[in-house]
């Protein structure tokens, strides 16, 4: 499998960043759709995987070499964010992957839908919407997919706490139990 170079992408879209640690192209805001169409035109016809990654606000300790040439530990705060990750391959050239990331805030998570470019994003973006709460602009059929429609919250977020009982609803059992405790029902 031949790797795809990210350099042409960065040349075409100067606003895009390259995240070396993750090996991913960070898509500049509002350019996801144009970029996706450009990539599709340049042979990346197959979008394998779409997913979200949730990062809470956290403190990162980094060892950097300062000007004096000494190693020192610096603490910096990374803001909370959600990444929507796309793994792109080319079926015609048999190359890949190229990783795209759309970065969005956690509180008002919004990303551009790439479903009109690659159909395979259809169900997977729905899944990201369902589990991470990212709102995809331009998605033709954005509904919950794995959780039921009445479900509240987005379970794949890191700060999600599950309620005591998902499907609790008052049933006759409770009444009977109460009556039983009062001694009204003889079992």
């Amino acid at each position, binding site marked *: *499998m031949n790797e795809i170079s990210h350099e042409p992408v960065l040349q075409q879209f100067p606003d895009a960043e390259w995240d070396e*640690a*993750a*090996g*991913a192209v960070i898509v500049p805001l509002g350019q996801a759709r144009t970029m996706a*169409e450009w990539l*599709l035109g340049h042979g990346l*016809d*197959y*979008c*394998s*995987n779409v*997913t979200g*990654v949730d990062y809470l606000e956290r403190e990162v300790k980094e060892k950097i070499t300062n000007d004096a040439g000494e190693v020192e530990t610096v603490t910096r705060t990374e803001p909370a964010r959600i990444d929507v*990750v796309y*793994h792109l391959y080319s*079926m015609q050239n*048999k190359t890949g*992957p190229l*990783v795209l990331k759309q970065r969005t805030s956690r509180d008002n998570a919004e990303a551009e839908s790439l*479903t*009109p*470019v*690659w*159909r*395979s994003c*259809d*169900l*997977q973006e729905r*899944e990201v919407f369902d*589990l991470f709460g990212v709102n995809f602009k331009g998605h*033709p*059929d954005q509904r*919950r*997919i*794995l*959780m*039921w429609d009445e479900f509240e919250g987005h*379970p*794949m977020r890191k700060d999600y706490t599950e309620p005591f009982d998902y499907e609790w609803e008052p049933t006759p059992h409770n009444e009977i139990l109460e009556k039983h405790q009062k001694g009204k029902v003889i079992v």
Partner: protein
Amino acid sequence: MSTAAAPNYELIQQDGLETNLLEVSMGPHHPSTHGVFRMDVKLDGETVVDLRPVFGYLHRNHEKLAENMSYLSSMPFTDRLDYFNSMTNNWAYALAAEKLIEVEVPERAEYLRVIMAELTRLVNHVTLIGFFINDLGALGTPLLYAFREREKILDLFEQASGARMMCNYFRFGGLRNDVPEGWLKRAGEVVDRFPYFLDEYEQLLCENEIILSRTQGVGNLPRELAISAGVTGPMLRASGVAYDLRKVDQYGIYDRFKFRVPYTEGDTGDCYDRFMIRVLEMRESIGILKQALAGISEGEIMGNAPRVFKPKPAESYGRIEGPKGELGFYLIADGTPKPYRYRVRPPSLINLTVLRDMCLGGKIADAVIILGSIDIVLGEVDR
């Protein structure tokens, strides 16, 4: 191209005599939705005018579970994704994790991995064809023949790993244990007998006029749409794209084996193509198995990878050619013993993207066999 790919959620226009549409909810309790899958179908007589898949009845948030336990602990859970093919699921996960911790897999383990994966492919394809013909309405005869042969392979799995379906056999850097004595000989016998069974199976199915007329021209999937929708595996090859990760990625030691990738000549694939591609693929798998069984040598089966480890912060995406399509695992490590992000790219789910496109305008019986030809397992669709 994007026009071909654009999903269309409009109802089919109906002309002529105006009749009420019959809304049928097929599933989650339906004999042929392969589990708890549900299709909300709108019927005009027997013709499907609208179909919406409904997922989630088997959802257990596998990904969240795996993010809260160590890398090794979620290995048995991968068995339960696509419970027909636990070996290949294990392999995909091991592949992704091995990229993170960078261990070498010993040669014997690589050979055994290939043998197990190809046996799994045989199991999956043979039962899928059985279920597919069952959906066509045969009274389980092909299915039971398939189960008969699967039985022999599952016995091999049991002897090697201790379990028939939930094998939990692969480990990061190798395999859990070596196969017992004489196992390779027994595997060789099963593999040698398999082509005779396939001959019989093909004689039973491939020329049957009813099967031909039921499957040909049903569930057409054009190549453009298949590529755009990320359809993978035999379904993609049935639509005329010779894209097999065993050839493209050459993961493991697949570069050492000689095999061919069958694909359809034309631009569209129908149910018959998907069915036949699987039959032909089984023949190729037998070829690989024979080469692997001949080429395997004695040696270690486990590299020096620890059971519990803390990989450096990194991201990895490991994918293999599972029997149902491209099975990928996307892992993000953050330096703790647990993966920060663990994502499964389920081929069953993504292949379902095109279900609606293929079913519209067909009969209700077609919808059932199209679903059958996609080959889904709900453990993987809903995760």
